[in-house]
């Protein structure tokens, strides 16, 4: 169910898309936060002559789309859900490199939701495209919705 907590999301839920223009600050700040010093992400003064979005920024896109679709647990705004969630699997495929100044659109849906060894899992699928339709990233993400198992202190 959209509009609630992240743990309320169900198999088949289709996210309302989000779009934004990639800025130099976003790319450089994200790269800086992971100690990635490649100039490809910090300025256009590199061999390609363009400043790129780090491909792992798909994780930020996940945050953006959850913020727009889960009103009771907007983490960017500082809201918390009933349980801490834990990222379990990241799987990104790069189809092209997006660069500063391009507008991108993030779409996605919930592929599955299931319980394994007492823990609930949520499987997201996201796509990032430029405004003119070029595919940038496809992404599958598996998240544990509650790390604590039943009966744990």
């Amino acid at each position, binding site marked *: 169910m959209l509009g609630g907590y992240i743990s309320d999301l169900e198999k088949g839920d289709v996210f309302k898309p989000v779009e*934004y223009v990639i*800025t130099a*600050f*976003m*790319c450089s*700040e*994200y790269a*800086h*936060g*992971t*100690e*990635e010093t*490649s100039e*490809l992400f910090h300025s256009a003064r590199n*061999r*390609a002559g363009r400043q*790129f979005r*780090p*491909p*792992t*920024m798909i*994780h*930020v896109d996940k*945050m*953006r789309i959850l*913020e727009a679709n889960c009103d009771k647990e907007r983490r*960017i705004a*500082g809201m*918390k859900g009933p*349980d*801490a969630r*834990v*990222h*379990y*699997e*990241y*799987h*990104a*495929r*790069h*189809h*092209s*490199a997006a660069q500063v100044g391009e507008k991108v659109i993030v779409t996605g849906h919930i592929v599955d939701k299931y319980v394994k060894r007492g823990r609930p899992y949520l499987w997201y699928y996201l796509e990032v495209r430029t405004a003119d339709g070029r595919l940038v990233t496809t992404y599958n993400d598996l998240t544990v919705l509650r*790390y*604590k*198992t039943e009966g*744990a*202190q």
Partner: protein
Amino acid sequence: MSGQPGFNVGDELVGPVRAITAQRIEWYDSAMLSAATNELRQVGSNIHTDPEFARSEGFPTANADGMIMTNWCSEMLLRTFGMDYLERGELRTKYIKPVNLGVHLHVRGRIREAMKQPSGSTLYTIDVWCEDEHGTKLVDGDAKVDVARG
């Protein structure tokens, strides 16, 4: 800016060796928020930054956001394959054990397969993982990179 040609199956990739510190955890979580909002932000309390809160959620202490290790694997692939990774790469990481504060992490990779493509490029499959100072694997995964002149 294509990757270096001629990798062989079994070749090792060299990734960073880094300690998991509170500063590094804070850097990532704050950067993620800043990138999401396009303004400088500071992360608050969560399982990564607050040991007390982490214990209340069933962890022994605060632990690193898995994306820190994914980014360090990505860094290794970018250093090795350049724009080929950025434009035609794929990375999968599984966070198989919590990576707690104080762990000394080694990011590693090894070429598992090299397949010549009809286009003339070479599709490399690479095992990637992060292990602690005792050699215990904490993050496991794989990557693919289609190297244009490989």
